[in-house]
C-alpha cells in the first residue's frame, strides 16, 4: 500500500525540482538577511574594542565595577601606575607626606575638569573620596582617615595609622574621582555612568556592550575618536575572529591559541606584559616537604622555562621568585639556588637518604615511597598544565606526585588548613604597587591565624624580622631592598615552587597608534590611542 502511494509520488519529478529550488531560494534569503548586519570598521571617527566585561553597571563603588569605568577611559584617579607599578601624577600633579606618614597632601591639577565642564577642585575630590568610604566596604581595607580637608586645589588627608603608599592606594580604580554634585542633581551613576574626568563619557552601557563618546571638556586636550564601541565578547575564538575580520580594531586578552597568528602577521601589533599575578605551588613544610633537601630537589627538578614557553605557548613567563618581573622588586637581582637541574635534584634526594630499593622508579626511605599530593583546581586553564608538568618532571627524579583536583571554592580553606603537600594558587602580588601584604600573608609566621593564608607552616624568624622592618619603613628605596631580601630568603629556604607569571595582552590593528599595555590592567582605552596619520 505504501509502495503504491510512494510510487505515484515519486513519479512527480517536477514537484521535487520545485522543492529543491524553493529550498535554495529560502537559503539565499537567509544569507541575504544575515548579510544585512555585516560591518567593517574603518570609520575614522569610530574605534571598536573587543573586551571581556564583568560589570553590570558603571557605579564605581559597587563590586569591582570601577575597573571598567577606568578601562573604558571614563574615569581617572589622583594617581596612576606606570609600567613598573609606581604611582605617578594624574589628576593630582604632586603630593607630599608628613614625617609621621599620617598626613598626605595632594595638589589637584587646576586644569582638570569633569566631563560636564565643572572644575575638579579639592572639595570635589574630597566629596568623591568620602562617597567611596560611605558606599564601599572595601575602602577601609586600603586606609582609614580621621579627616579630609580641602582648600582650593589642596587636599589634605589625615589618616588614623601611618600609610606608606597613599598615592598607590588612591590610584586604585575604586578611588576614581566623580562629580558627587551631579549625582545629587539627579544623575544615576549606575544606569547613566558617572560624571568623571576621563577622555570619554558614557552614551550607553550594558554588560554586553558599551558606547562612549569624546568628552568635549577633556582637560588634557582633544580626544581622537568621536565614538568608541566596546562589545563584550566572552568567547576567545570569537574575539580573535572579530579582530581578524576587522569588526573590532583592538581586542583585549587574545587566547594562547590565536596569539601566535597575530604575532606573525605584520598587520597587527601585539602588546604583551607580565601581569601582577604569580602561579605558585605552596609547599607544606610539615609532611614529605619538611626536609629542605626534598623541597629543593622538587624545585630543581621542574623545568619552568619549558612550562611557560612550550606547554603554555609563551603566554606565561617562567617562574623564579614570588614577585613577577613586571614589578620593580629586583627580579633579576635574585638568585635561584634551585634553578632547573635534574641531576642536582637527584643528588639532593640521595643525600636526604632516598633510594629506589624496590626498582619501581620511585625513591623510598624507611619503606615509604617518595609521594606527594598536589591539590589543584582547573577553572584556570593553565593550572592543570603546570601541575602535569611538575608531575612528569618529578617522576624523572624518582618522586611520585598525585594530582587531586578540587573545586576552586575549596582552595581557600585547604590553603588555610594546610591540608596538602603541594597546593596550586594564582595570586595577585601587589595591586597597589606594594607587595608587603602578599609577602606577609603567605609566608609570615602564622600565630593563631595572624597570617591565615600561611597554612604551610613556613616560619623563619629572620623573615619575620624583615617583614616587621618593612612595615615600619616608609622609605621606598629601603622597602624595595627589604622586599628583595625577603624574596631571597624564601628562595634560599625553598619555601615554595614559583611556577610562572601570566602575561596579559592587547592586540590592535596596525593602523592604530599608541596602544599601551600596563601590568595593572586598569588602562585599556586612553586619549593617546588614535588612527595613524
Amino acid at each position, binding site marked *: 500500500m*505504501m509502495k503504491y502511494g510512494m510510487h505515484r509520488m515519486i513519479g512527480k519529478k517536477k514537484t521535487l525540482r520545485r522543492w529543491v529550488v524553493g529550498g535554495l531560494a529560502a537559503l539565499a534569503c537567509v544569507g541575504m538577511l544575515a548579510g544585512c548586519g555585516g*560591518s567593517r570598521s574603518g570609520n575614522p571617527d569610530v574605534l571598536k574594542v573587543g573586551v571581556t566585561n564583568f560589570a553590570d553597571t558603571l557605579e564605581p563603588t559597587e563590586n*569591582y565595577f570601577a575597573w571598567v569605568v577606568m578601562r573604558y577611559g571614563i574615569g581617572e584617579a589622583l594617581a596612576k601606575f606606570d609600567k613598573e607599578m609606581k604611582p605617578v601624577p594624574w589628576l593630582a600633579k604632586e603630593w607630599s607626606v608628613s614625617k609621621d606618614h599620617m598626613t598626605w597632601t595632594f595638589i589637584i591639577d587646576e586644569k582638570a575638569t569633569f566631563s560636564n565642564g565643572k572644575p575638579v577642585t579639592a572639595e570635589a575630590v574630597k566629596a568623591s573620596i568620602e562617597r567611596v568610604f560611605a558606599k564601599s566596604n572595601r575602602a577601609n581595607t586600603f586606609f582609614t582617615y580621621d579627616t579630609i580637608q580641602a582648600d582650593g586645589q589642596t587636599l589634605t588627608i589625615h589618616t588614623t595609622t601611618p600609610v606608606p603608599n597613599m598615592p598607590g592606594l588612591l590610584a586604585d580604580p575604586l578611588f576614581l574621582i566623580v562629580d558627587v554634585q551631579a549625582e545629587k542633581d539627579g544623575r544615576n551613576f549606575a544606569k547613566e555612568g558617572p560624571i568623571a574626568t576621563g577622555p570619554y563619557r558614557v552614551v550607553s552601557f550594558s554588560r554586553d556592550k558599551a558606547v562612549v563618546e569624546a568628552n568635549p571638556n577633556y582637560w588634557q586636550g582633544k580626544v581622537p575618536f568621536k565614538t568608541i564601541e566596546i562589545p563584550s565578547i566572552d568567547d576567545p575564538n570569537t574575539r580573535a575572529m572579530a579582530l581578524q575580520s576587522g*569588526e573590532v580594531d583592538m581586542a583585549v586578552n587574545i587566547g594562547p591559541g590565536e596569539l601566535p597568528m597575530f604575532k606573525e602577521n605584520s598587520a597587527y601589533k601585539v602588546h604583551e606584559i607580565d601581569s601582577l599575578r604569580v602561579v605558585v605551588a605552596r609547599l607544606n613544610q610539615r609532611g614529605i616537604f619538611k626536609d629542605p633537601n626534598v623541597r629543593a630537589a622538587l624545585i630543581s627538578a621542574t623545568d619552568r622555562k619549558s612550562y611557560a614557553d612550550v606547554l603554555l605557548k609563551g603566554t606565561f613567563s617562567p617562574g623564579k621568585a614570588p614577585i613577577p618581573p613586571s614589578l620593580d622588586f629586583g627580579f633579576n637581582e635574585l638568585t635561584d639556588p634551585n634553578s632547573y637541574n635534574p641531576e642536582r635534584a637527584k643528588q639532593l634526594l640521595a643525600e636526604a637518604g632516598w633510594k629506589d630499593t624496590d626498582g619501581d622508579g620511585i625513591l623510598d626511605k624507611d619503606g615509604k615511597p617518595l609521594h606527594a599530593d598536589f591539590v589543584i583546581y582547573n577553572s584556570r586553564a593553565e593550572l592543570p598544565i603546570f601541575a602535569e608538568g611538575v608531575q612528569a618532571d618529578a617522576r624523572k627524579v624518582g618522586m611520585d606526585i598525585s594530582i587531586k583536583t578540587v573545586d576552586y571554592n575549596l582552595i581557600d580553606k585547604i590553603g588555610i588548613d594546610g591540608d596538602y603537600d603541594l597546593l596550586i594558587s594564582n595570586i595577585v602580588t601587589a595591586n597597589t604597587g606594594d607587595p608587603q601584604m602578599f609577602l606577609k600573608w603567605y609566608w609570615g609566621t602564622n600565630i593563631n591565624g595572624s597570617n591565615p593564608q600561611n597554612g604551610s607552616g613556613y616560619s623563619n624568624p629572620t623573615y619575620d624580622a624583615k617583614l616587621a622592618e618593612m612595615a615600619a619603613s616608609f622609605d621606598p628605596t629601603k622597602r624595595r631592598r627589604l622586599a628583595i631580601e625577603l624574596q631571597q630568603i624564601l628562595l634560599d629556604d625553598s619555601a615554595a615552587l614559583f611556577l610562572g607569571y601570566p602575561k596579559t595582552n592587547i592586540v590592535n590593528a596596525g593602523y592604530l597608534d599608541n596602544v599601551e599595555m600596563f601590568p595593572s590592567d586598569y588602562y585599556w582605552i586612553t586619549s593617546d590611542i588614535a588612527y595613524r596619520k
Partner: protein
Amino acid sequence: MVVRIGKRLVQLLITLLGVTFITFSLTYMAPGDPVAMLLETGDTIISQDVVEQTRHELGLDRPFLVQYGSWLGHALTGDLGMSYSAKKPVVDKMAEAFPGTLLLATTSIVLMLLIAIPAGVMAAVYCNRWLDYILRAVSFIGISMPTFWLGLVLLYVFGYKLGMAPIATATVSLANVMLPAITMAFTLASKYMRQVRLVVLEEMNKEYVIGARARGMTERAILWRHIFPNACLPLITILGLSFGWLLGGVAVVEMVFAWPGLGKMAVQAITMRDYPLLQGFVLWAALAYMSINMLIDVSYSLLDPRLRKGGHS
C-alpha cells in the same frame, strides 16, 4: 475544560515550588561561596573582616531555611531579590536578557520549521530513496555536531571569510540574530526532521489515505490537506517543548556569538554563585517550559475536532 486548566495550574505551582526549593538547596550545598567569587573578581587581597561583612550584607550568614523562606516570601510578591554580581534587581537583569532570548528562540523555531518540515515530508515521501538517504545523513551529521563548533564554523565562513554577517555585535537585532539562529535551527531541524518523517510515514499508511486516493484526490491534496494536518498534532508537542527549552536560553550558542540572552546570563550567574539570579533564571525556565506544555495540552482539544467533541480517533 476550566477544571482541567485549574488542575494544571495547581500542578504548575506545586512543581515551581519544588523546583525552586531543589535549586536553592543544591546551590546552598554545592561547594562555592558567592562572597569569595565577588571578591576574587578584582586582583585584591581581601581581609576576613570584609568577607564576613559582605556575607552579612548579602544575608548569607542566616540559616538555610530562613534564606529560602525570605526569598520565597519576596518572590510571591514579584520581588526576586537583588543580583549579587550585577547589583541590580534580578527582574531587571532578566528583563534585559529576555528580548535577546525571545528573538533567538522565535527566529530559530521559524528557521527550524522552514528546514525541517519540507525536509521531513520529502524524506517520508521519498522514503528509502536517495533523497531520503541524503536528508537522513545530513540530519545525522546535524545531530552529532556540537553546536559551539557549528557556530564557530559559521562565524568563520560567513563572518570572517565572506564578511556577510557580524561576528560579535553584542546587540539584539534581526540581522545579528541570523547566524546564531541558523546554528540553533540546523541542530534542532536535524532532530525535528526525523520526527516529521516518522509521523508523516505513519499517516501515509493509514486507511483514510487509500480512501482519499480512491475518491480520486491528487497526491498533493492528500499530502497537504489530510496527511500533514494529522501529522501536525504530535509535532506540535515537540515544537512546543523545543520553544520552551529555547526560552530558557541557549548558553553555548549565546557565548560563542556574544549574544545577550538568558543562557549567557545563567552561565555568568553560576560562575559567580549569584544565587538570586540563578533562582530567578530557574524559576523562569521552569515557568516557560511548563506554561508552554500546558498551552499545548489545551491547544490539542482546539486543534483536533475529535478531542473537542469527546470522540475517539
